């Protein structure tokens, strides 16, 4: 037993030193792209003219319907031959993760926009606000508070999704834990990786909860609102995919 903990003690720092960088980079890059894609596609599917709605709907369904690994391999193997552009491993991983999870995020954004009470839209129109002002000043602050729980779930999914980037030759935590396994054995090596992933997911989820509370306070929902939100959020911990319609 004590030997197990010594092995775990050897595995943890080695994984942090050698694998954490690629995992974190692909997560951060993927997260930024995900939010960008989600907001653009979400706005387009909800607000765009009919043709734009159709196109963005098709993009969302395409990226949700084909598997992440397929997209990753397509970008990695097929894109260079098709276009002559070689993105390199890191950008390929970021692009695949961002587009895939961004498509799920677009559904979260669309759902949140649709959940802003109709009176808010109508009042803004009645005051003849320009479209951009209406979205920025009236709709977005309310939709933002609604979409954060969904983004929370998606970002935790994204943390777990980064485990595939080893397939395009990045030295991420999963890849490194397979290397470390040869020295310290199966359980300590992989348990160390799982613990690190778990901690990253906890931190991400915690940050998103702080953002959510802040967004609600700014809407004047105060502590009562955030408590209620938090409870319903806990109850439907995985509301994101259900929220997103098709997981």
């Amino acid at each position, binding site marked *: 037993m004590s030997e197990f903990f010594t092995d775990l003690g050897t595995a943890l720092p080695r994984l942090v030193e050698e694998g954490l960088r690629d995992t974190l980079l692909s997560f951060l890059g993927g997260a930024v792209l995900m939010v960008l894609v989600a907001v653009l596609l979400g706005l387009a599917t909800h607000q765009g003219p009919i043709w734009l709605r159709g196109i963005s709907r098709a993009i969302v*369904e*395409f990226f949700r*319907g*084909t*598997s*992440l*690994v*397929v*997209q990753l*391999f*397509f970008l990695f*193997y*097929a894109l260079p*031959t*098709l276009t002559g552009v070689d993105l390199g491993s890191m950008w390929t991983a970021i692009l695949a993760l961002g587009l895939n999870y961004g498509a799920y995020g677009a559904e979260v954004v669309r759902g949140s926009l649709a959940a802003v009470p109709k009176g808010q839209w109508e009042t803004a129109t009645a005051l003849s606000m320009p479209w951009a002002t209406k979205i920025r000043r009236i709709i977005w602050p309310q939709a933002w508070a609604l979409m954060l729980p969904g983004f929370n779930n998606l970002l*935790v999914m994204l*943390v*777990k*999704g*980064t*485990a*595939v980037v*080893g*397939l395009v030759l990045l030295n991420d*935590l*999963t890849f490194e*834990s*397979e290397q470390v*396994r040869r020295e310290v054995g*199966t*359980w300590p090596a*992989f*348990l160390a*990786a*799982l613990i690190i*992933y*778990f901690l990253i*997911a*906890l931190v991400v989820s915690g940050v998103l909860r702080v953002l959510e509370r802040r967004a609600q306070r700014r809407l004047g929902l105060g502590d009562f609102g955030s408590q209620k939100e938090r409870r319903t959020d806990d*109850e*439907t*911990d*995985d509301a994101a*995919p*259900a929220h997103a*319609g*098709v*997981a």
Partner: protein
Amino acid sequence: MFDSELFLEALPVLLKAFVEVTLVVTVLGSLLAAVLGLVWAIALRELPAAIGRPLRWVLDFIRMTPLPVHLLVVYYAFTQISPKTVGILVIGIHYSTYMAESYRSGIDSIRSGQWEAATALSLPRSRTWRAVILPQAIRNTLPSLGNWAIAMFKDTPFLIFISVPEMVTAARVFGGRNFSYIEAMTVAGLLFLLASYPTAVLMQKLEKKLAY
């Protein structure tokens, strides 16, 4: 660029892998996940906190950590089990933690009057579950379970980590042999889309139909 002959050549190869591995893993994995998920959901409600709380931690830990690492650890730790079986078991257990949450919200949506009525009729606890709570709860849960099954279907390429010859692995091998990945990867993507999109639409219809 895009060789349509190679595309047609890849189609039967990938279809075979699709039927033999991807579908088998998805169907058996979903069944396992649906059964285990229900077990977790009931256990979390019925067991005393001394056992229930650690169980909750374990389920949360599994839910918040990546599937490929789970596959690898079981694959290396239990070498006597075949990789495909490892895949079914691990994917099934991983998704059972998601489905447990779906069942939980389904069970939570049952009004307390149902529980009280069952108590007032002094129905035994097991019969309350079987005849009163679950029939209503599962009806609410069904579409969500279906969505998880679709998500699982799209996660089966993770089996590449433990070298199970599922469809995407087959596509990669095919691409490597013919020095062109576009065709095989397009086939793989199309098959995923063709199988998952109609099922997803079906689930949405089911959801609307089952809603009270």
